[in-house]
């Protein structure tokens, strides 16, 4: 509390550092100006940086893409080597900055913003913790031995490499362990750390270390496990603290500015925004039955069939299907005709026009908060809680196994693929189950389903490709171009309107209880 303030330059910053008081290092990243070793920050304390509001958001989204990519890779059961490449690629693709000097800042800022986003519930914390730890692990592995040692020092690891004398004493055992892991005795590490066994649980669990009297002998090549465990436990504690801070002050203090961003971000969907179909009128009313059969994901197919059967859907179903249809390119007139045709059979024409037509129009309108009128992502649909009489939601998640099997076989999934799908469902990998269904029905690999509209457009693409490749191979490149890049923009969470509102707030810069200093316009930083 007392020894940190002195090394801060400006008066203003003093307040911020209060939160950082428990840390001995002011900045979490090494200030090794001389050596330009690319080290990984340990995110020990919130940086005393000023952040533009836009960057607050966009940096975090970029990092989130990395974490979601990792999550996706892990849930697909990628092997460590594949994960290493994946993480490297994800990082390269998302975490660059046009100014080399800003790369580290982006890394740190994005981490701390996401901490705020993901501190708020147990479930969010768990996810964030796993993904950040995985990220850290693979980044660490990728460092040079020198940089790795720098990180270890940064962690203040109280462990020293064992002496030669001690090494000779246990060498036989160390060799034995290495051989038990399939290594040749000639390649056995020469540097070992002696560490309390509970610091390296995964090495203990795999019998990958020699244990004696409560100490594990960790080879230099295994140090990543040690460091990753430490990283994880420190982050875990930090998240709890952040959560307390969030609840006690930040949420309220920032309710007009940061809180909406933070709250929107954890549920944000990062794929392309399907609210604007590339070409309106892509499908017309007369095609709709046919494309529903060929290209709707199960959640939409189910709603569609139910609507045709009952001539009615409850609100949740109308929203889910209606926005999806808008996304696939059904124009407003066709949409009205579509809903009218069904609903009038049940409630009559008059009641439809009075009670339901407005909503259909509204879905196509621009008024109100735009986010609500964006087609729902899988994540949103899966996390829905349909009640009695509701038909919306994701069938992989919300159907009984029996009903799901029946629905899948109606779709035309064969029995072998069915077992794979059911297996994923049992492991609660609903989107993977949907992906497998897609693959089974299209006979083509899929990059993974994240959005019903993506399911639709991927499906359509395959059918068009099939047709075109039969006709003229020449046109193929053009079709490939149709793929919308998953990294087009940051739409879908922060709406322009809300931004406007935030700008209206007085005082461009606020100290977030030491969390961040934010500058909506970013003048300050540029002036300095």
């Amino acid at each position: 509390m007392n020894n940190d303030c002195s090394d801060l330059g400006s008066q203003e910053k003093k307040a911020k550092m209060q939160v950082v008081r428990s840390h001995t290092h002011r900045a979490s990243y090494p200030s090794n100006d001389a050596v330009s070793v690319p080290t990984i920050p340990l995110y020990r304390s919130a940086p005393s940086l000023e952040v533009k509001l836009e960057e607050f958001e966009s940096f975090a989204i970029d990092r989130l893409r990395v974490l979601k990519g990792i999550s996706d890779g892990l849930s697909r059961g990628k092997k460590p080597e594949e994960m290493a490449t994946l993480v490297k690629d994800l990082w390269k693709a998302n975490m660059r900055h046009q100014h080399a000097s800003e790369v580290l800042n982006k890394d740190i800022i994005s981490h701390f913003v996401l901490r705020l986003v993901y501190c708020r519930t147990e479930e969010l914390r768990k996810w964030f913790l796993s993904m950040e730890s995985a990220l850290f692990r693979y980044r660490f592995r990728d460092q040079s031995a020198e940089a790795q040692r720098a990180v270890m020092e940064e962690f203040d690891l109280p462990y020293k490499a064992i002496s030669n004398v001690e090494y000779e004493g246990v060498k036989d055992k160390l060799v034995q362990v290495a051989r038990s892991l399939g290594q040749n005795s000639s390649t056995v590490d020469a540097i070992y750390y002696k560490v309390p066994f509970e610091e390296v649980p995964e090495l203990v669990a795999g019998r990958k270390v020699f244990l004696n009297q409560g100490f594990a002998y960790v080879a230099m090549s295994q140090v990543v496990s040690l460091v990753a465990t430490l990283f994880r436990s420190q982050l875990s504690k930090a998240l709890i603290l952040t959560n307390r801070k969030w609840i006690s002050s930040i949420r309220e203090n920032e309710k007009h500015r940061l809180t909406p961003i933070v709250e929107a971000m954890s549920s944000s969907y990062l794929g392309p925004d399907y609210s604007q179909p590339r070409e309106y009128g892509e499908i017309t009313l007369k095609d709709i039955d046919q494309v529903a059969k060929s290209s709707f994901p199960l959640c939409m197919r189910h709603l569609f069939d139910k609507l045709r059967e009952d001539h009615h859907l409850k609100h949740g179903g109308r929203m889910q299907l209606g926005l999806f249809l808008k996304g696939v390119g059904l124009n407003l007139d066709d949409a009205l005709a579509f809903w009218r045709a069904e609903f009038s059979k049940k409630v009559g024409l008059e009641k439809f026009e009075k009670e339901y037509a407005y909503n259909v129009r509204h879905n196509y309108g621009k008024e109100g908060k735009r986010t609500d009128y964006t087609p729902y992502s899988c994540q949103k649909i899966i996390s829905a809680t349909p009640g009695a009489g509701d038909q919306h939601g994701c069938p992989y998640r919300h159907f009984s196994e029996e009903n799901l099997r029946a629905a899948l076989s109606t779709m035309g999934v064969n029995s072998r693929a069915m077992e794979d799908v059911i297996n994923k469902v049992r492991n609660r990998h609903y989107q993977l189950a949907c992906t497998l269904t897609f693959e089974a029905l299209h006979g083509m690999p899929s990059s993974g389903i994240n959005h019903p509209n993506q399911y639709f457009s991927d499906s359509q693409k395959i059918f068009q490709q099939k047709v075109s490749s039969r006709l003229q191979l020449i046109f193929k490149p053009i079709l490939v171009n149709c793929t919308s890049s998953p990294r087009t923009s940051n739409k879908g969470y922060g709406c322009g309107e809300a931004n406007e509102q935030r700008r209206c707030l007085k005082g461009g810069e606020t100290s977030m209880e030491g969390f961040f200093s934010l500058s909506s316009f970013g003048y300050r930083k540029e002036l300095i």
Partner: protein
Amino acid sequence: MAREEVNNEIDEMLIDGYEVQQGQGGDTTLPDEFNANYLKLYYGKLFPHADLYKWMSYGNDGKHPACDPSYLGRREFSYTLDNDIYVRFQSFNSAAELENSIKDKCPFKIDIGPVYSVDPSKRHAYAQSGDNVFTPVERELIFDIDISDYDDVRYCCSGADVCLNCWPLMTVAIKVIDTALRVDFGFKHILWAFSGRRGVHCWVCDAKARKLSNEGRAAIAEYFRVYKGNENSYKKVSLTGHALHPFLARSYTDVLKEFFETKLLSSQNLLSSEERFEKILEMIPDQSVTSELRGKWQESRRSSSVKEDINVVRWEQLKQLLQSGKYKAQRLHRCVEEIVFSFTYPRLDMEVSKHMNHLLKAPFCVHPKTGRVCVPIDPNHCEEFDPTTVPTLSQLLEELNREGLTTDVEGEWNKTSLRSAIRLFRFLFLQPLLEACKKEIESSYNAKLKQSKDLLSW
């Protein structure tokens, strides 16, 4: 229900009746069934309440300023009462409270749970405060080994039954796990106890063990695991790599190999009949080896000499063939070890060990089915332990009655066959544990003192 024959009047009379009978030099046998009234007597006169209290306090019942007086009160006890009524989250603040409650409720079974952040009986009050403050913070590292998990490798008994032919599997488990806990993990305060019927429980009570996270517990459990596969698949050991991990190598050479070759082979007749040797041949992934052995064994059925144990002879043949230069295939070189591990390596109930909040039966409970007391086992002499001679409730009460009204300074138990069990608990386990606890409390106190001094001089 199974335990319906409870009759209050008869029981009171039995005690009186005894002295009469004894005076006449008559038969002193009590009916063998487990019975709630016997249990009341047992808790009243024999159960070592004070020892349980001291153990569960871990030194926090002393006068030292660094003692945590809330410690015992945050520990969960749970009772299984008559008619299988299960009461969780009991807690006690003093030795007297604990003893009175046990005597009063007379539980058929007492389970010990974790130490929570707050008094578990008041958990609801804390639940209201929103923050998740009711959470386990300490718990002994525990292991549960059950002979019924060995049914595919023992032919003498199955299920909950156990005899002197298969019990040594438990002895082997104790040796392997106990050694690893002490040598590899550095733990010192380890209590082994008979579970009363078909297995053993292990309590690792070092402070470091009690404070392990679930992750740390899982890591230790995994360290001990060699079986792959689950309930639905044949339990299989597969050992890979160029060498065995030092822990496995030690277990093999010090315990498993000898036990398998000199005891289990013959006692379970592992290779005597076709049905049994086929099970072992199944573990050899090489057709030519298995058919050569099969041929030999089917012929030799009659011709082998009577003197030599056929199991041993065949095992030697198997070993010779696998280890001869004839079949040098990589995948065969571990086969002998794999067979030995499959038959003898401890089979732990992993889930029990992995989580802090698993409950485990307290030592000195009486098993309601067998009437036997869950006595401690000395790991250094575990081969001497005989589950069939563990004192039963009725036997103890007989002994008590036989001794009549003479009082013993130590307590009534000193006159019964519970004596050695309680002494074992006290001297082998509790005393060294409490000494360590005391030291720890003192040193943590001194560290704190030093820290505050440092602060003052800052």
